[in-house]
C-alpha cells in the first residue's frame, strides 16, 4: 500500500484531486483508492515504464550534452488529472459560446466592422495589432468559419473558479500529446482505468478530418486534404506528422506545393495533384511570401491569392491571430454580449489594459503583485511574474510599458490550482492549466479531455514545455457519482 499519499501536502491551494482537509474529492475517490492500493515501488515502476514507452515511440527532442545527442522525452507524470462531469459541462458550454462569438467577431472585423462602429471595441486597438491582417479584409472563408481548430487555455484560481487565460486561435499545438499520453497510460497502467467512466479522446483525428473536409466545395466528393508543416526542425513536427498519419492524409512542406492554373498542387510521383484543403501549421507571417513576409522560404508563393478566390481552404484562416492579441482578449466577454446577447459562461482573468492611462498607473504601482504580458508573445515568453521577479526585472518591464503601453496587459497573479506529481520518490503538488481542443465544422465540438500542463519546478506558475513544463493525462469523467 502506497505511503505517498499520507505525506501529501495540499497546502493553501485549490487541489484538483484533494479537498483542503486532504481527503480525495468525490470524482477522484475511485482513482485515489486504486493508486493507494499500489505499493510505492509499483507506482515508480509504472512511471518508469511510461517514460520508456514514450522514448520508444520517439516522442522526444534532442539534447546535445556531448558529441552524441541524447534523446529526451517531454516530462510526463502518470497520475491523471481529473475533471468531474459538472465542471466539464460548464467548460464545454462555455467554450462553445466563446468560439461562436470569436468566429462572429472575425467575420465582422474583416468585413463590416460593426463592433468598431458601435464602439464596443476601440478601433485603434484592432488596427494597431501586429496580428491584424489587412490582406484578409473582404475575404469570405468557406462556410464562414475562421477558427476551425482552437486550443483554449483554462486555469483555476484559489476559489475554484475556472478562467479563460488565452484563446489560441492560430495554430495551437499539443493535441497529439493528449492522444499519445492516453495511449501510454492504457499500455502501461491499464488497471487504473477500469470502471471509472473516463471519456474517450480517440475520435479526435476523425472529427478533425470531418472538420477539414467540410471546408471543401460541395461538388468535390473526395477532397484532397493535407497538413502543411514548416518541416522537421519545427518543435511541433511530431504533432504535424502524427495528425497527418492519424487522418491518413499527406504531410506536406511548402516546397511540396506549387501554385499554377489558379489552384494549389502538390508534387507527387505521378505528377502534380490538386489540393483542396490545407490544415496549415505555419504562421500567417510565413505562409505566403507574396502576401506576408517576403523572406519566408517555408511558405507557398501565391497561396493567399488562390485562397481569396475560394479555390483552396485554409485552416485556420489567416488573420485569426487578431483574436490572440492579449488586448483584444480583454474584450471577449463584451463580444459575447454584443454578438450573442449572453453573459460569458467562462470568465476572463481580470485584465488591466496599459494603453488606458488609469489602468497603466495602477499596473505600474502594483508590479510586484501582477503578471505582465506582452500582447503578442506566446509560449511563456515576454512575461513578468511580479511577485517572483527582482526589482531590476520589474523596472525593465516598467520602462517597456511606458514606452509601448499598447503592447502590454497585466493580470492579478493567480494562484493556479495544483495536482499531485511524482517527484524524487514522493508526491508533491504542482501548478497546472488545462488546454481543451475545440473544432468548428458542421457544429462546434469540444474534445472531452485536453492537455494538462504542469509546472514541474516547485512553486513555478509557468507550465509551457519550452520553460520546463510537463504534462499529464486528463480524465473527463462521464458522470459524477452520488456524493
Amino acid at each position: 500500500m502506497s505511503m505517498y499519499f499520507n505525506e501529501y501536502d495540499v497546502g493553501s491551494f485549490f487541489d484538483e484531486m484533494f479537498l483542503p482537509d486532504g481527503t480525495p474529492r468525490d470524482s477522484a475517490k475511485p482513482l485515489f483508492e486504486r493508486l493507494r492500493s499500489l505499493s510505492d515501488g509499483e507506482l515508480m515502476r509504472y512511471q518508469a515504464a511510461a517514460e520508456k514507452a514514450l522514448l520508444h515511440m520517439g516522442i522526444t527532442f534532442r539534447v546535445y550534452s556531448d558529441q552524441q545527442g541524447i534523446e529526451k522525452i517531454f516530462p510526463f507524470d502518470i497520475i491523471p488529472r481529473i475533471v468531474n462531469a459538472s465542471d466539464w459541462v460548464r467548460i464545454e458550454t462555455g467554450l462553445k459560446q466563446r468560439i461562436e462569438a470569436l468566429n462572429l467577431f472575425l467575420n465582422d472585423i474583416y468585413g463590416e466592422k460593426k463592433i468598431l462602429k458601435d464602439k464596443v471595441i476601440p478601433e485603434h486597438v484592432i488596427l494597431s495589432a501586429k496580428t491584424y491582417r489587412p490582406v484578409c479584409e473582404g475575404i469570405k472563408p468557406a462556410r464562414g468559419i475562421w477558427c476551425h481548430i482552437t486550443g483554449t487555455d483554462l486555469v483555476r484560481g484559489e476559489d475554484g473558479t475556472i478562467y479563460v487565460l488565452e484563446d489560441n486561435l492560430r495554430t495551437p499545438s499539443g493535441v497529439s500529446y493528449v492522444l499519445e499520453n492516453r495511449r501510454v497510460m492504457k499500455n502501461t497502467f491499464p488497471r487504473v482505468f477500469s470502471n471509472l467512466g473516463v471519456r474517450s479522446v480517440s475520435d479526435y483525428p476523425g472529427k478533425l478530418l470531418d472538420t477539414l473536409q467540410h471546408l471543401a466545395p460541395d461538388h468535390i466528393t473526395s477532397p484532397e486534404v493535407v497538413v502543411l508543416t514548416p518541416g522537421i526542425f519545427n518543435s511541433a513536427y511530431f504533432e504535424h506528422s502524427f495528425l497527418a498519419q492519424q487522418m491518413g492524409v499527406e504531410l506536406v512542406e511548402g516546397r511540396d506545393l506549387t501554385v499554377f492554373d489558379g489552384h494549389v498542387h502538390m508534387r507527387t510521383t505521378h505528377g502534380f495533384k490538386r489540393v483542396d484543403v490545407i490544415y496549415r501549421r505555419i504562421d500567417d507571417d510565413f505562409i505566403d511570401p507574396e502576401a506576408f513576409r517576403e523572406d519566408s522560404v517555408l511558405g507557398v508563393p501565391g497561396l493567399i491569392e488562390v485562397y481569396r478566390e475560394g479555390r483552396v481552404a485554409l485552416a485556420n484562416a489567416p488573420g485569426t491571430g487578431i483574436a490572440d492579441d492579449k488586448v483584444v482578449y480583454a474584450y471577449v466577454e463584451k463580444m459575447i454580449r454584443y454578438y450573442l446577447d449572453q453573459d460569458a459562461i467562462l470568465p476572463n482573468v481580470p485584465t488591466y489594459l496599459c494603453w488606458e492611462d488609469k489602468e497603466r498607473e495602477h499596473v505600474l504601482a502594483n508590479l510586484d503583485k501582477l503578471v505582465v504580458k506582452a500582447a503578442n508573445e506566446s509560449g511563456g515568453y515576454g512575461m513578468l511574474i511580479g511577485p517572483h521577479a527582482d526589482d531590476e526585472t520589474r523596472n525593465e518591464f516598467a520602462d517597456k510599458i511606458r514606452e509601448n503601453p499598447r503592447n502590454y496587459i497585466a493580470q492579478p497573479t493567480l494562484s493556479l490550482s495544483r495536482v499531485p506529481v511524482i517527484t524524487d520518490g514522493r508526491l508533491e503538488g504542482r501548478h497546472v492549466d488545462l488546454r481543451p481542443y475545440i473544432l468548428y465544422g458542421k457544429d462546434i465540438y469540444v474534445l472531452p479531455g485536453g492537455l494538462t500542463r504542469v509546472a514541474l519546478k516547485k512553486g513555478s506558475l509557468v507550465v509551457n514545455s519550452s520553460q520546463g513544463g510537463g504534462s499529464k493525462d486528463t480524465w473527463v469523467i462521464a458522470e459524477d457519482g452520488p456524493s
Partner: protein
Amino acid sequence: MLSRSAESIYWMSRYVERAENIARFINVNMGMFLENQADSAGQWEPLVQVTGDYEHFSQRYEASTMEHVVEFLTFDRAYPNSIINCVELARENARTIRESISSEMWEYLNRLYLKVMDQAREGTASVLTGSTFFTEVRLAGNLFTGITDNTLSHNEAWHFSRLGRMIERADKSSRMLDVKYFILLPSVDDVGSPYDELQWSALLHSASAYEMYRKKYGRITPHNVVNFLVLDHDFPRAMLYCVTKAEESLHDITGTPLGSYANEPEQRLGQLRSELAFSSAETIMHGGMHEFIDDFQGKMNRVDEAVYHAFFGLRAIPRSGGA
C-alpha cells in the same frame, strides 16, 4: 504519393540495408579472425575496400587493425557510411515520413537508433569481444523488412521501399564479390587448401548465402560461387534477384507492363536485368570479374540517377499560365 516522401522512404530502406550489410561483413570477419590470428591485418583491410571508401579510411587511421576498421565502419561520425550514421539517417528519413509508414516501422527504427547510440557511448571496445551487437544489427535489417512487409500496404510506398533496398543490396553484393574475388584468385598457392575453402565460405557467409549455396551446388568452386551470387534467380542477395525485384517494383509504381518501358529508369533497369539474365559465369569470368562489376556498378548508379529525375526531382511549373 508525394515526391519528397517517396524519396525519403527509398533512402530510409537503403540506409537500413547498408547498415545491415556492414554489420554482416564485420560479424563474419570476426568469426574468421578467431581461427586465423596470424594474418589479422590482412583480414580487416578488405572490409574497408568493400565500402569503396578506403582512401577516407587511410587518411585517418594508421593501420587496418580490427579496432580501427570496426571503429571506422561502426561508430565513426566522420565517415558518412558508418553504421551509426546509416541508422541515424534511416531514422531521420523515417521521421520525415512518419505519416506515410506504419507506427510499427517507426518505433522499431527508433529503438534500433537508441540501441546504436547507447552502444556508441560505451565505445568500440565494447563490441569487439563477446558482444551480440553486430548480430543484432544484422537481425535488425531483416526485422525491419519483415515489419515493413507486414504492416505497410504493398502500395506505392512499399514499392519505393523495396526499390531502395534492392538497389542498395545489389550494389553491396557486387562490391563484396569484387573485393573478395580480387583477394581470393591471385593466391594460387592456396587453391584447394583448407584456407582457400575457408575464404570462399566466408564470402558466402558474408552474403548469408552459405547454406543456400550448399543446397544448390554442394562443393564450393569459384565458378559456382559466381553463378550463385551474381546470376541466381531465387537467392535474395544474388545480383540478378535484386535487379529483378527492383524492376518489378519500378513497374508496379508506374503501371508500365514488364517487358516494356515508359521512362528512363525502366529502360536502364530493364537493360541491366536482361544483360544479367542472359549472361553466364564463364562469360563474366572470361571478361574479368573486376571489369564486369565495375560496369555493373556504373549502370546501377545511372539507374539511381534516373529514379531521382523520374520521381523525386519534379520541377516547378512556371506560374505564367496562372489564373
